[in-house]
């Protein structure tokens, strides 16, 4: 054993051995499909006949002629900006609130955290029911207090905000992350600020905020990446709210109402698995990839704390 440790070649082999599951996984399930996606984006391929090279024709088609690309990109970017901003602000507020709670903290923590665990499909189906304009409990209650409720998932103007509302119900993970980082801020700094006569806002601005900035960055980066993939909730909300009977295999126009909930990932699915336009679907995938990477790199340059625990 002692011999094997002093032998660099064997040590390298041992490292490779431990890393092998990931090395295989990375090459087969990440590197290969990524390269293949680029390859197919230059091919005409309907998944039956052999692919043929068409140069930039898929790219031109997506950017110039695909009618749904504009709305899908707009919806995705809308969700990325609004949903991430609202989630971070609300998650941070909830984190602050939970650190101030003295009585029943366990109950409140559980109540705020639990919805995060609800399976997205179940949560979405439940919200479409709750926010049903005609018979849903929410509009019933709003009616009772004299407010006529909006049409929520059935109105193009409120469909995306309704999705934001649904995402706030599942804010539990962010709340816990913020709570933990808020509890990590050194108490002495607050005491020092107290001695200087700092008010609540000054304490937040000059003590809390600098201490939690890396976590906020982390939340923003992961939030952006998650929202770029936003799929299940948008798809299920659109389908269930439309009230159409959808059997498996039936092709419906996604993004009900009026494509207001159509996101780029849904378009990838539609192109790749319903229209069998592999080239266009791969172009859309790469657009998604480019935006996700660009935003991530931009935000990581500032300092995300992602690798801070190195060593």
């Amino acid at each position: 054993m002692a011999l094997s440790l002093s032998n660099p070649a064997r040590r390298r082999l041992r490292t490779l051995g431990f890393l092998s599951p990931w090395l295989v996984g990375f090459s087969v399930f990440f590197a290969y499909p990524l390269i293949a996606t680029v390859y197919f984006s230059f091919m005409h391929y309907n998944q039956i006949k052999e692919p043929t090279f068409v140069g930039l024709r898929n790219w031109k088609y997506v950017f110039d002629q695909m009618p749904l690309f504009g709305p899908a990109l707009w919806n995705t970017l809308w969700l990325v900006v609004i949903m991430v901003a609202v989630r971070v602000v609300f998650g941070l507020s909830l984190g602050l609130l939970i650190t101030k709670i003295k009585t029943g903290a366990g109950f409140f923590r559980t109540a705020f955290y639990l919805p995060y665990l609800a399976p997205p499909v179940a949560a979405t189906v439940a919200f479409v029911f709750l926010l049903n304009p005609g018979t849903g409990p929410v509009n019933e209650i709003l009616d009772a207090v004299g407010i006529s409720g909006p049409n929520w998932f059935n109105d193009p103007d409120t469909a995306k905000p309704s999705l934001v509302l649904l995402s706030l119900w599942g804010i539990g993970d962010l709340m816990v992350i913020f709570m933990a980082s808020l509890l990590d801020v050194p108490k002495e700094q607050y005491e020092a600020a107290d001695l200087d006569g700092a008010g609540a806002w000054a304490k937040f601005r000059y003590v809390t905020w600098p201490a939690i900035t890396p976590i906020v960055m982390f939340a923003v980066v992961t939030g952006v990446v998650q929202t770029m993939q936003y799929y299940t909730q948008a798809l299920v909300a659109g389908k269930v709210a439309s009230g159409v009977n959808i059997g498996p295999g039936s092709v419906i126009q996604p993004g009900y109402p009026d494509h207001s909930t159509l996101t780029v990932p849904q378009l990838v699915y539609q192109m790749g698995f319903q229209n069998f336009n592999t080239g266009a679907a791969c172009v859309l995938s790469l657009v998604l990839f480019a935006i996700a990477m660009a935003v991530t790199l931009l935000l990581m340059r500032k300092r995300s704390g992602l690798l801070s625990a190195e060593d």
Partner: protein
Amino acid sequence: MTTTTLTAPTAPERTAPARGPAAARARRKRVLHWIAVHSVAIGVALLFVLPFVFVFLTSVMSDSQAMSGDLWPDSWHWSNYREVFETPGFLDWWRNSLMYAGLGTLFTVCSAIPVAYALAKFRFRGRRTAMLLVISTMMLPPQVIVIPMYLVWAQQFHLSGTLWPLIIPMAFGDAYSIFLLRQFLLTIPKEYIESAKVDGCGEFRTMIKIVVPMAKPGITAIALFQFFYCWNDYFGPQIYAAQNPGAWTLSYGLESFKSAHAVNWNMTMAATLLVMAPVILVFFFAQKAFVEGVTLTGVKG
């Protein structure tokens, strides 16, 4: 110590029985602060809990009442739940979900442990690069690579219509689990590992005998996260299992359940709760591991 009633004095007041208008004002301010914080908390908690309550109440209503917009059931139709279970396919969806989540979790844990251990404790060239690659994998939207992957599984291996294309890759490391577990393993002091080596343990034995038992909370956390990821997954089963109802999972089946029961919100809500139930049950048994896992990714990361 905290107090549950407003009239009971809080600890500092008892030790320092200050009098006079200044002390009274300070006490009043504290009490008002307590009331303000807790009223906000109760208000927000209601908003978080009410969806569950309404979903449950609707799930025991009659068909017609569920359509009426009533909030409270006239009579309690517990048989809705039995009917959901008797829906053709529903039990298969349970079996498939359990298989996907169970095997997926097992594979993920077994493959993530050695990788995370190497990334946390071995020193080798390219360690930083490997870590960056793990993180960039985490950042990649699944839709980016799904088409070539689907073509391979469907055309080379003829496995479309099954959940295997989703389960097999988990035997080759899941970036998120590797990342999380590595962050956890960083907190295990070097000394334990070194002393095991002095006692003549090889790396593999050190990992199994020393590191795995010490990393139990971290391993539990990745197992739970992976289990729920699989349980909640909709996109994966839609890609691979859509054409074959016999391979549907609960998450995928639920939406088609709604379509089949277009007007039966009561049945749909009962099914919705049944899909949520396992997740919530497991949470109550493993609360600590969860919170630990979430904070680990966010804070120590």
